[in-house]
């Protein structure tokens, strides 16, 4: 494990790299992201995905996390088949593929590696074209088995990574809205002095803090349910923060002149990867009702 100062140095290096480069993947390659993932997966994922979210940078490093979790050596020309939007079950023939599809030579699925020539790709523009996502269909073919790793553990790690990314994004949204509220004046005073505005910002911060706490438990507890809870909390936090901060940012937040819209759109996309707040919440509820038990996760 890294100590606090090593983590802070790494976080600064990642922020700096993302700030300098146009292409986030290239920047992360340069600072040795895949080596960090192998050596210190927990810290590497938390720091890199948090920074990606905060900077609203588009990168395909979720591929590396899923590939690594499946027990395969990550590499820049290997992409991965993610489950369809809003779902988290093992994808068989259809799903989503990251921007890495553009230059990858092979695609890893839960059942093995297939060449990209066997993958039908349809680029997704959607609400967030910068993310470079694709819908994909894999021509059924026998691939090399990826190993006996349980898919739910793979999903759990991916959910945590996405959770950190949403945490970074939503905290930045709160910072943007807070700065606006302190600067924007109406009736002769900053709107931050109006209680209605303050309460929205407070509510947004509460949601972000809840997400941080849920992510910390998911990092400490091996149970995949903790990661599902964290990812569901992330999606819910994104929705709450998106709506409160939009309202506080008011007119300027409705334009593309202000960066808020990029964060809103990106978090809406991230919510749908590996299970959304809606689908995961209903799934968790159904698990409780069918087992008649309520797991208590994370001890003192």
């Amino acid at each position, binding site marked *: 494990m890294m100590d606090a100062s090593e983590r802070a140095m790494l976080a600064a290096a990642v922020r700096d790299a993302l700030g300098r480069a146009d292409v986030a993947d290239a920047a992360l390659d340069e600072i040795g992201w895949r080596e960090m993932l192998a050596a210190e997966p927990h810290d590497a994922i938390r720091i890199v995905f948090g920074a990606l979210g905060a900077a609203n940078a588009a990168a395909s490093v979720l591929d590396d996390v899923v590939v690594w979790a499946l027990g395969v050596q990550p590499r820049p020309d290997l992409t991965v088949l993610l489950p369809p939007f809003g779902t988290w079950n093992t994808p068989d023939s259809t799903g989503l593929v990251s921007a890495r599809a553009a230059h990858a030579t092979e695609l890893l699925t839960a059942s093995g590696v297939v060449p990209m020539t066997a993958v039908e790709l349809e680029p997704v523009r959607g609400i967030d074209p910068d993310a470079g996502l694709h819908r994909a269909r894999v021509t059924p073919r026998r691939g090399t088995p990826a190993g006996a790793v349980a898919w739910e553990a793979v999903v759990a790690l991916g959910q945590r990574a996405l959770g950190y990314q949403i945490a970074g994004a939503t905290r930045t949204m*709160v910072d943007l809205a*807070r700065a606006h*509220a*302190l600067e924007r004046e109406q009736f002769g005073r*900053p709107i*931050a*002095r*109006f*209680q209605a505005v*303050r*309460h929205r*910002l*407070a*509510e947004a*911060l*509460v949601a972000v*803090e*809840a*997400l*941080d*706490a*849920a992510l*910390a*438990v998911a990092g400490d507890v091996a149970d995949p349910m903790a990661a599902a*809870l964290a990812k*569901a*909390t992330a999606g*819910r936090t994104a929705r709450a923060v998106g709506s409160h901060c939009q309202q506080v940012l008011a007119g300027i937040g409705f334009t593309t002149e202000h960066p808020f819209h990029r964060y809103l759109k990106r978090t809406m996309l991230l919510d749908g990867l590996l299970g959304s707040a809606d689908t*995961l*919440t*209903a*799934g*968790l*509820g*159904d698990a*409780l*009702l*069918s087992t*008649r*038990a*309520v797991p*208590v*996760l*994370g*001890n*003192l």
Partner: protein
Amino acid sequence: MDVAQFRSELHEWLDAHHDDVAPRFAAPGTLDDRIAQMQRVKSVLFDAGWMRYGWPETVGGLGGSPLLRTELGAALAARDLVDPGLFSLIEVLVPTLIDFAPTALARVVVPRLLSGVELWCQGFSEPGTGSDLASLACRATPDGGDAASAAVWVVNGQKVWTSLAQYADRCVLLTRTGTPESRHRGITAFLVDMDAPGVTVAPIEMINGEREFAEVFFDDVAVPADRVLGEVNGGWAIAMSILPFERSSCFWQRIAHLYRRLEQLVAVAPRSERAAELVGEAYLRLHAARARSRATQHRLAAGAPLGAETSIDKVLIATAEQAVYEAVGRLLPEAVVLDDDAASEAWRSGYLYARAATIYGGTAEIQRNIVARRVLDLGDE
């Protein structure tokens, strides 16, 4: 003893001594039943030592991390052996005695509270004093006029929302000893005997029909000067010192209680898409509150001071409690609205009680004001 070892030995012991601690009435029972049950559990657990962990030896404790007593409260709540709202009052009373009472007084009275011989209440709120605690008016004056030499103080005034006042043997009471304008600088705390002449208790019926709290009137109540807690005019420090306990172990116990309620709900609620959404929502909220509280307690155990940021914990736990009972109200509507069997009474009582989750201990709005002012640093309104 480390926390994990304590937890596992405690649960083993509770399994083995189930009959000694289990309620002898069907839930919910009357408040009288539940108070008697709590005192019995405290007595049994004090004798067995469990009630003494996490408290210093100077007050009859066995020492160890405060997290041990937090685990105890949570275990009792999770097993429905005590009502955490009543049991966790210890957490806001005993630390005050340890930190502010004369040593001789604390050594005598604290073990009586821990062992269930006595029950105490906390007299803070007043009819004109809710979240604005520094405005309190219940007055204490030194008999003879000189605070330094008085042997007795005389208390006049009123408190309200005083939980369990009608059962209480003593009260940690905040009084005004400075000028009315002195605000937080002119407050003094006392440990007052509730059987002192001039103390009158008038229970208030809550929305669920129970009488958990009361109005307390003080008419020329004489309190010995050796019952002053802390410094004269230094009572604000006492009020503030309670926050870390209220926001850590008390919350943890309440959360354990809510997990138990959700477990009871999924045991009886029919499986459906709508049920899955409501139960999932409650579970998510409860998990978030617990995750946050866990982080807060780890910070506290590491020596960090707790402050305004715990308003976030308060918002999360209130939201969680209401989400659990929102699911109850919508999945068991007849139990909550129509039925009169004991189980339905319990659901109804809990449902109605949960409506106060965003009110007591500082309303949701006050918590958001605190987060805005002191955590987000948005400046004055």
